[in-house]
């Protein structure tokens, strides 16, 4: 089944003259891990809003086309119904935290799903541990740091175990080691849920491609409201490089794409060490 199915979706925000999305066709199957990237302002968050049904229900404007999420037609289903099984971590985590303690925010989703109390506790513990903020359980979401808020927002969605999770720049405020471990934990959770028979689908909007490149199965580049590239991550990155689309290609790959033909490199190096030892094979470049 397609978890997401957008058919020639176009959208124009009320008061704006131009379409921010034009003719978007996007099918995402169950279990996929999709990275969506593209220049700032290209329409990534807008696509996320369509998938959640927030567009057209909460944002006025001109919507055309058809959009299905988990088999539900977004036009015929209220946002609240879509949200029970489809979670989004917004770009600005503060918009997501509204209770008096981190713990309550994380418990809110599972409580609304009317899960039994022991399961709610288990989910809260699991989610707080996953993002590494067990120590902030009783803190108020207003009196923690930016990165801590982002972690709390992520936990509050993960605790629902939704079938589809959209992360809109989930690591923008996290320190390098938290970013890496968060991404790992998310994919580990996905694996362990799969072992228990529950497939979840991930859509991750990120400028920081470096973190995700080894985890995702598919990469989409949006530019100016259109999907311009969609496919295997390495191919998409190479195309983006050739076409000079301003996305954050990981530095090592940027070097690789640029010098591969001249230096006879056949496949992307896995590390800087690997790249340099290849270049040094004939003994040069060691001491300048």
């Amino acid at each position, binding site marked *: 089944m397609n978890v997401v199915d957008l058919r020639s979706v176009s959208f124009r925000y009320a008061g704006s003259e131009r379409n921010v999305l034009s003719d978007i066709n996007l099918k995402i199957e169950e279990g996929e891990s999709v990275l969506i990237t*593209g220049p700032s302002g290209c329409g990534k968050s807008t696509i996320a809003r369509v998938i959640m049904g927030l567009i057209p229900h909460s944002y006025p404007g001109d919507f055309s086309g058809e959009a299905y999420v988990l088999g539900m037609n977004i036009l015929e289903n209220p946002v609240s119904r879509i949200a029970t099984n489809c979670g989004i971590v917004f770009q600005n985590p503060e918009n997501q935290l509204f209770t008096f303690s981190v713990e309550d925010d994380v418990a809110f989703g599972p409580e609304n799903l009317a899960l039994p109390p022991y399961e709610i506790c288990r989910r809260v513990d699991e989610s707080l541990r996953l993002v590494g903020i067990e120590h902030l359980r009783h803190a108020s979401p207003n009196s923690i740091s*930016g990165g801590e808020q982002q972690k709390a927002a992520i936990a509050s969605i993960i605790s629902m175990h939704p079938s589809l999770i959209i992360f809109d720049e989930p690591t923008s405020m996290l*320190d390098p080691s938290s970013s890496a471990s968060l991404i790992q934990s998310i994919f580990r959770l996905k694996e362990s849920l799969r072992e228990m028979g529950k497939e979840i689908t991930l859509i991750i909007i990120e400028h920081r491609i470096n973190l995700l490149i080894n985890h995702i199965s598919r990469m989409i580049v949006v530019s100016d409201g259109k999907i311009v590239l969609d496919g295997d991550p390495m191919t998409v990155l190479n195309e983006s490089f050739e076409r000079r689309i301003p996305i954050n290609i990981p*530095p090592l790959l940027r070097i690789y794409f640029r*010098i591969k033909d001249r230096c006879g490199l056949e496949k992307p190096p896995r590390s800087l060490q690997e790249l340099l030892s290849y270049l040094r094979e004939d003994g*040069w470049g060691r001491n300048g």
Partner: protein
Amino acid sequence: MVEIVVENLFFKYPEAENYVLKNINLIIKEGESIAILGENGAGKTTLAKNLNGLLKPTQGSVKIDGVDTRNLSVAKIARKIGFVCHNPDHQFFAETVEEEIRFGLRNFGFPENEAERSIREVLKTFGLEDYRFRNPFQLSGGEKKRLAIASIMVWNPELLILDEPTIGMDYAQRLNIQRVLKKLVSEGRSIVVITHDVDFAASLCERAIILSKGEVIGDGCLRKLLSDSEVIEKASLKKPFLIELEEELGFSIMEEDFDEICDFLTRVFPKCHS
């Protein structure tokens, strides 16, 4: 020109039990480019807010040009020390992008014609010309961030403190902001950048102040500090790519632009000549 002297600063939020900043001592001089780095919750934002008087020390002092921040109004400090906070939504209040930018200029008494020129210039610098009459809350994440920076930078404070300036920036904009900030420093202004983006910090800042659990665990040459594995481990950082590359090569690269680095590599390795 502005100088900030921080002495034995301890800070605790009113209702909290523990100190968030412990015994901080620093001097920030004119023309400096400083990165404040450290793990989530280290105290970076809290320190920044102590530097510009939004928060006052619980113990110790912060002096701006010799005057204790307890004796200065926030507005007065803001003319000298601009602060771009991490969440643009906290900063915005005007109905249009233009008004948002004009506010500071009007407040600080810039003449209308000069204000108009500055607004145009800053809109252009940050690629926001098309949004001049848009409501700031109806911008994308990255556009908001650029507006937040533009609306503070426009009055040309002597010191600019930016909390996470690269959030939501794509490749081109990250380079752009790097260029814009470098230019400020070359004109004698100072910048303090709080960021988790070590690559950005490395390509922009000379000095790093590393915070961990509320304490300064390193203050000095950024390149040196970010080659120190112990510091990196302790403050949950990462070695910047450029430093890693230099260490592996065994010599330093002056280029910061990727195209130039690539050209450089193809020059030194004969493998690329065939």
